[in-house]
């Protein structure tokens, strides 16, 4: 839901973001501005650090160095991760504003579809149960899965599970959505329904950061593409330029490989 007044100010700024796992530096200083309503595709080979980058944004991984500014406020991630500190509440509040969709869906198997969707609005946002259910039903209806409201996730296809996972994140009315290889674990014939939902969200003005191997999707849906290589931004720009006429040799090699593999399929 883009807000006209803030349409030009970045909703998220990453400044010189670094992340080390022991001696291994996975992110070596990444700077990105994400504007309201913008859809950013993040591509790169496995192990290039793109998933880690995404997970640093909502602090599932704590950065080693650098700044994260979300909605105009610097995120005090240094004190996060301490269960008993008050900063961990700030972190939870930040995460409530940022939706995330995982490769493995991560729906909760002991809860029905509707319970998965209303859980966070009720426990985190303290929305009354009746309203949470009404909202969830509207969302489920919008993706054509309302009749599955009382099913458990195990009874849904991978594509349906992932769409429920997206709706579960949307139920929190996030200002930013992160997609971490949302279609990589899906059977090929189920990829389309998830990409279609993501494209619909993009069209409705949702701000999105999408880590993906789906180059065609990135080209058609994303405004900007960032190519990450060995923990650094190798190339970035409007998606059509980066993905059609990459300036960097590494980007070109990567695209050749990815597009070729997809072609052979």
């Amino acid at each position: 839901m883009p807000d006209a007044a803030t349409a030009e100010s970045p909703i998220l700024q990453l400044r010189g973001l670094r992340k080390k796992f022991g001696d291994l530096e996975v992110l070596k200083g990444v700077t990105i501005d994400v504007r309201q309503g913008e859809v950013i595709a993040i591509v790169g080979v496995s192990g290039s650090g793109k998933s880690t980058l995404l997970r640093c944004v909502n602090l599932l991984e704590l950065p080693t160095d650098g700044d994260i500014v979300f909605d105009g406020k610097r995120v005090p991630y240094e004190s996060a991760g301490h269960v008993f500190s008050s900063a961990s509440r700030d972190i939870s509040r930040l995460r409530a504003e940022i939706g995330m969709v995982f490769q493995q869906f991560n729906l909760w198997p002991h809860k029905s579809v509707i319970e998965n969707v209303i859980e966070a609005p009720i426990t985190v946002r303290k929305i009354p149960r009746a309203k949470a259910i009404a909202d969830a039903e509207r969302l489920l209806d919008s993706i054509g899965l309302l009749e599955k409201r009382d099913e458990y996730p195990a009874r849904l296809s991978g594509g349906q599970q992932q769409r429920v996972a997206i709706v579960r994140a949307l139920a929190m009315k996030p200002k930013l959505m992160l997609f971490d290889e949302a279609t990589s674990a899906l059977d090929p014939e189920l990829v389309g329904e998830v990409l279609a939902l993501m494209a619909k969200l993009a069209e409705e003005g949702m701000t999105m950061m999408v880590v993906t191997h789906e180059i065609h999707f990135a080209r058609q849906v994303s405004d900007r593409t960032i190519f990450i290589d060995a923990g650094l931004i190798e190339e970035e720009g409007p998606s059509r330029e980066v993905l059609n006429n990459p300036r960097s040799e590494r980007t070109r090699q990567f695209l050749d490989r990815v597009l070729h593999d997809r072609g052979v399929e």
Partner: protein
Amino acid sequence: MSSSGQDIASYSGMYNAVDGWWNQIEVYLPLFVPASWVVIQVSVLSIVLSWACGLVCALAKTSGYRVLQYPAEFYLWFVRGTPLLTQIFLIYFGLPQLGIRLDPFTAGVVALGVNGGAYVAEIIRGGLLGIPQGQRESALALGMTYWQSMRRIVLPQVVRIIIPPITNDAASTIKNTSLLSTITIMELMLQTQVIVSSTFRPFEFYILVSLIYLAMTTVLMVGMRWAERRHAIAY
């Protein structure tokens, strides 16, 4: 079955057992009711305490904080490396020296609960490790706190996987209440010993008390199996 026949039977042991044993059991059976009730009370309280100790210890061990991990490690190491009987004596006879005086019932519950907790902790920890990391991450990513993600998302799933091992542990606790006969709690074992010492019918009464223990552990196992099935319906 005259009363004089009963007397002869009790003195001549097994030879006249057929004539006298049922009479004896009929006479003494009422004494097993309060003793059983003591076992049930001690067991329920100890089991609940062991779950609480086990949960706290498992969360401490998986917390990633050394200040929590080390005490938990020490607790597991001490409790699992020493005999339960020693622990019971330590709590009942030893603690009064430090000014902590517990009545036998409380001391028994504490000893069995703390002892069971060490085993429950490892069961829960195993259960926690059995839940994919993504389950908690998706809860955290939606803004839940550590406690919310544990209580609402992770632990309900842990409960389901640990029901069978936790049942075995609870059955052990019921059986271990027999050790509390050593600290003057009039539970089933001590009651039986008292009766045997005046009837000289160890075989009959130890069989009888075995059947009572079996009834309790069987009810527990059936109950837990029912709980397991109820939790399994969902998925």
